[in-house]
């Protein structure tokens, strides 16, 4: 499916992927009574945050993420991907780690789980990280900083 005006967009794949992510988060909520927030689950798995979530369950969730991506790859779905160079990648990882701990969540916890619940903290967090995300790419482009191959 092609979106008029956006030849590179994949709206149908995006919607299907999004519905799957929503179902996964719904399973955590209705099955286990928990938020599928990846940064919090990662911090819990590696002993970097207090949580009532058992560490085994935290690791099980994290192992599932590449497992699901591998299954999609094995079925021949999910296209190519390009990753930024090691140095900006490490800097970005550091900022993501610090930011998600201070900000109590990321795109999954605040974005998927919090926004759908109309949590005010999540709405503020999403508006903030979207704004700085847009600004970061705009500034990098304006300065001619290319990080993708």
């Amino acid at each position, binding site marked *: 499916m092609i979106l008029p005006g956006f030849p*590179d967009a*994949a709206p149908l794949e*995006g*919607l*299907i*992927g*999004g*519905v*799957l*992510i*929503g179902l996964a*988060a719904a*399973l955590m*909520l*209705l*099955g286990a*009574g*928990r938020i*599928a927030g*990846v940064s919090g689950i*990662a911090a819990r798995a*590696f002993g970097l945050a207090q949580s009532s*979530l058992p560490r*085994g*369950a935290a690791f099980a*969730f994290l192992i*599932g993420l590449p*497992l*699901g*991506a591998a299954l*999609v790859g094995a079925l021949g779905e*999910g296209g190519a*991907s390009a*990753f*930024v160079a090691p140095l900006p990648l*490490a800097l*970005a*990882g*550091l*900022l*993501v*780690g*610090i*930011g998600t701990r*201070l900000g109590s969540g*990321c795109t999954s916890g605040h*974005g998927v789980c919090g*926004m*759908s619940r109309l*949590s005010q*903290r999540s709405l*503020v*967090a999403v508006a*903030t*990280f979207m704004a700085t*995300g*847009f*600004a970061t790419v*705009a500034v990098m*482009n304006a300065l001619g900083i290319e990080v993708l191959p």
Partner: protein
Amino acid sequence: MSREPIIALVSGTIFGAGLAIGGMTDPARVRGFLDLFGAWDPTLAFVMGGAVLVMALAWAVQRRMAHPLFAAGFSLPDRRDITPRLVGGAALFGVGWGIAGLCPGPGFAALAIAPIPALIFLAAMLAGMLIVRLLEGE
């Protein structure tokens, strides 16, 4: 034995599949979405829209449940205060997200696609989380 690890594994697997199908394991696509003033790629908005729609229904169901299907009770965040820490943290996260086109979920999912870049990103992310923990002296 608790059924929580099994639920978590199934949820994580569906989550990872959704990220891959939606193109979120491709940093170029995520940065395309964040390139609002350039060659904007709206795909991420469809991913987020689909996920939020399903979860909005799940929250409506949750409000009618006394307890989760396979656990004794709900363990959900209940804070409502908007703090400088929340806003500052989200701001820093957004900068990192913009630089790499990766957030934590796709970072883990990418282990199946490009293990070396994913490991670099995840190691740095965990180091960042450790820094916060050490500075706060928890």
